[in-house]
């Protein structure tokens, strides 16, 4: 069996808090592991501050984890390259940022952005260059390409800019694209097009996409698998249909119950307490909010449990399995 396209193994990241001379650190990611296959879309969901962007930056090698490994086609890249990524890694793993108004340099044209990626990775040069730029723009649905190539970012709409950002990532012909909330800054009427574009890429070119979002509805429509992050830890992961239609972790259920969908969504109470304290260092991070928390939850980190094939849940209720499913949900 061939190794997964991209694999994260027990990634940890903490940041210093407090001022000068303070050694305190805050843990932002704890033992995050997952894998991404060729042609697959993996959705990473979680509330803001749960560590989604931090994880994206680690995988895009804009930041280095405190510990843990990143494997690209089975090869441990951190062990070999250390802190700064090789050009070869950049040529295989690309990123699309959240805010298309910030990710393009206002002083350069659309063509410049694409040409640089093409040249830097030796994908085209000379007379080829312009033709390739136009082909890229057309492939993300930006026509007429000749005209758009000459524009500056401020002369484009948000949706067009995000397409340019996708085209720039595609220019290096990557195997993996990390998309950090690529549609959250866009108007709703342009969102769908960008999502469709990403989906097409995985199908046509076999690119693996890590799709970061806080919008469960788009995750449902786009992703093959879902990874739920809470306070820097993976709490549930599995096939989209399993995780979003038969959620096992109380936090996943909470998230789903808060999605504004349907006439009644405001009439159903939230199955959790309001967050008042930061996650505890010991035990389950969700325990202070969880309606089902018992003494075990405050004492020990629950192990992963597999209720179905490829479906992992990190909750004592699940792992003890003595409790029937419905009892687990009603408070």
């Amino acid at each position: 069996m061939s190794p997964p396209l991209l694999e994260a193994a027990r990634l940890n990241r903490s940041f210093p808090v407090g001022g000068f001379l303070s050694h305190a650190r805050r843990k932002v990611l704890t033992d995050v592991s997952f894998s991404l296959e060729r042609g697959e879309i993996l959705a990473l969901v979680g509330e803001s501050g749960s560590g989604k962007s931090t994880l994206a930056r680690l995988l895009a090698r804009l930041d280095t984890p405190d510990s843990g490994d990143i494997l690209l086609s089975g090869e441990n890249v951190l062990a070999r390259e250390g802190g700064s990524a090789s050009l070869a890694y950049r040529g295989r793993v690309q990123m699309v940022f959240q805010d298309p108004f910030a990710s393009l340099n206002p002083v350069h044209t659309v063509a410049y952005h694409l040409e640089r990626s093409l040249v830097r990775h030796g994908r085209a040069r000379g007379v080829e260059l312009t033709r390739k730029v136009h082909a890229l723009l057309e492939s993300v649905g930006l026509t007429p390409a000749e005209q758009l190539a000459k524009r500056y970012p401020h002369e484009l709409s948000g949706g067009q800019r995000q397409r340019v950002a996708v085209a720039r990532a595609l220019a290096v012909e990557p195997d993996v694209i990390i998309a950090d909330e690529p549609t959250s800054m866009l108007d709703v009427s342009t969102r769908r097009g960008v999502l469709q574009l990403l989906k097409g890429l995985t199908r046509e070119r076999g690119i693996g996409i890590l799709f970061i979002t806080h919008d469960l509805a788009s995750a449902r429509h786009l992703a093959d698998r879902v990874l739920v992050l809470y306070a820097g830890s993976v709490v549930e992961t599995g096939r989209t249909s399993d995780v979003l239609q038969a959620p096992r972790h109380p936090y996943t259920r909470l998230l789903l119950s808060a999605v504004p969908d349907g006439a009644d969504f405001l009439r159903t109470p939230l199955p959790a307490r309001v967050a008042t304290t930061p996650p505890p260092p010991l035990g389950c991070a969700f325990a202070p909010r969880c309606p089902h928390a018992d003494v075990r939850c405050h004492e020990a980190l629950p192990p992963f449990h597999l209720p179905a094939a490829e479906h992992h849940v990190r909750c004592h209720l699940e792992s003890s399995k003595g409790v029937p499913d419905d009892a687990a949900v009603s408070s």
Partner: protein
Amino acid sequence: MRETLRRLLRQRKAAVGGTLLLGFLLVALVGPWFVMDPTELMGQPHQPPSSAHWFGTTGQGQDVLAQTVVGARETLAIGFAVGALVTLVGALVGITAGYLGRRVDDALTLTTNIFLVIPGLPLAIVLGAYLPSGPFRMVVVLTFAGWAWNARVFRAEALALRGRDFVAAAVVAGESHARIITRELLPNMASLVASSFIGNTLYAVGAQVGLEFLGLGDVGAVTWGTNLYWAGNDAALLTRSWWIFVPTGICIALVGFSLTLLSSAIDELTNPSLRAPPKAPKAAVVHAVATPAQEATAPGALLSVRELSIEYMTQAGPSRVVDQVSLDIAPGEVFGLAGESGSGKSTLGYALLRLLPSSAAITQGRILFEGTDVTALSPEALRAFRWSRVSMVFQSAMSALNPVLTLGEQFHDTLAAHGGGSRASSYARGRELLAMVGLKPELVDAWPHQLSGGMRQRVGIALALALEPRLVVMDEPTTALDVVVQKELLQRVLELKSRLGFAVLFITHDLPLLLALSDRVGILQAGKLVEVDTAQRLRTDARHPYTRLLLSSFPHLGATDTQAPTPDVLEQAASALKAPLAALPGGRR
């Protein structure tokens, strides 16, 4: 780039400063060929201006005009050379430090700071003694003494730009550090480079003249500084030979003046807030086609907006962002206003409280609140009306809360402005209001920065409800919040609404949310209200194509699911909240 240049030229400051400076450059360049030899003794010493020597002669008999004109050449050459060098060195050191960060930054910043605290000029002069005398020495000395300050400015700018996504995107694209500094960061600092260069040239001319006047330059050269040095040596003041130093003095002042004008022009160009704002369009309030008031107001409506148009004055002329909007809100109703960014939602919301920025004006129509025309209220009447009848919750609670006041003080401010009582009673009411929105009453003593985003929005709602208004305008109050926090907040709003009976105008781009929350929903497209109907009917049979487009843009979580995500929770829902108020009949326009 060309556009920037054109705007620069159109500016009066830039035009005057530029012309003046260009004049001096021309004189410095070609002038020396048209005047006498400035070092030769051409006439009697201390001669006042005459036809032979237009500016008179020096204490030794040289021509003052010749000295002034020839002096311009070296003075300006050194000035611009130092200006360019200081900017270049400062920018490279500063950007490298700011961009690379960590150890490189520590080392470079330490060096910079040392240069800033040591008295650079005297040190440079001492070191300069080892260099051959001449213009080159002056350039080295002034650059050595001046770069550090610039490095700090550029470092700060690089630190600000470094965190921007386009830099991260360039790293991911595989660009090298050197290329990121020169091609990504530096071009974004064009205005800083330009204004630093001008500022540094100003510094260089001043410092150079000062040093030479003190005799620390090359006294054999002809520059404005040495002119003054010799004037002093030759007792120009004692002999009242004003003509010896006045021309040079005026030249120095004019060069300084032109450089100052240029740098302020650049600042204004790049920082639009320094520019005078465009005038708002004339509020030629064309009171909507002479319809009598009783006809305009729907019976029983709390608020009636009639044919309201609002225009912003922009650089390109007036732009209409709200276009003949009419709508009614009944007492206790939740009216949702949906639209994409730029559709005019917030402008409409702000107009209801007459909180429009000065560049916007209501050009047509009226806003009738319980029969009073809000557009015609006097300033005092408006002050009494705002907040007590209609209040507002803003998208960013932080901008609505005063960061330097405790919550209790903010409640007191709001209550006292409307004839409230003592501080103690304000605090008591503040506690009550905080409890009402589900926060701990003790938080009256907290500062805004101690609260999370969701808590701040609750405080925003508590403040909006402080005077028991009949209508609360909520402008994307939950857009910045997570779905879970959003739902908590909205459930609280609905509960308070049914308890206190206020009406809500809820503005958001999130149509599914609005449909679940509102009794009636209006769809705004490019300033026009294209459809208004009950939430229920919009969900199933929207008529306008734009509404349908919006509706289809939101993916659903479980439209096709047979199994709902949390069936047991749904069961508990039955008694949770009161059924929504019977809505006004939805009009379509």
